[in-house]
């Protein structure tokens, strides 16, 4: 990788990490923690959510710059890694999801709490990124095909 490209890569990476951390943690300074004395503050939850959304925008923006900064070999490596690596990771997570979802942790280690609420929270927590990732995949693939008409 030519030196200039390498320097840009590290600059983008540093900007991504630092910027994302600063933006996502800014509410700590601006409004404080979202839970005060065990009570959830709705306004603060909204502020924290917006901050994370902005942080993700920042991260994605620099992610695009990092991707475009690579040569075509590097881009293809990234695409293969994200496509097949993410697919492999999802595949591996499925049996773990079923094991935990069916109460496997509690069955083997009774000290681990189990309740219908916990089960529901776990299922939502697992399915949200999986479904969003799949939706993102379908949208980007359709958009790519549409742009090549």
């Amino acid at each position, binding site marked *: *990788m*030519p030196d200039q490209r390498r320097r840009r890569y590290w600059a983008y990476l540093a900007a991504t990490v630092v910027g994302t951390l600063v933006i996502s943690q800014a509410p700590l300074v601006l409004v404080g923690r979202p839970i005060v004395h065990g009570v959830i503050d709705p306004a603060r939850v909204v502020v924290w959510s917006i901050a994370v959304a902005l942080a993700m925008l920042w991260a994605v923006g620099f992610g695009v710059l990092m991707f475009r900064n690579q*040569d*075509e*070999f*590097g881009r293809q490596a990234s695409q293969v890694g994200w496509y097949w690596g993410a697919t492999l990771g999802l595949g591996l997570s499925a049996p773990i999801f079923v094991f935990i979802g069916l109460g496997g942790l509690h069955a083997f280690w009774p000290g681990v709490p189990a309740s219908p609420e916990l089960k529901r929270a776990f299922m939502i927590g697992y399915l949200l990124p999986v479904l969003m990732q799949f939706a993102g995949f379908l949208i980007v693939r359709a958009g790519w095909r549409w742009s090549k008409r």
Partner: protein
Amino acid sequence: MKNRLKVLRAERDWSQADLAQRLDVSRQSVNAIETGKYDPSLPLAFRIARLFGQPIEAIFQDAAERQD
């Protein structure tokens, strides 16, 4: 896909890093192309052809074509 990149590079006494610099790609890209593990895109193939002053088909050869 077979290619003559290594030969052409050696004729000019360039290292893989030299060629990578001239093509504005990584040294790993040059190595992968030379060993036939990665086929360059058409734009990069044209850049390579222009750099060596030869037509693309004089540098890159399709495996099926070689059997004919």
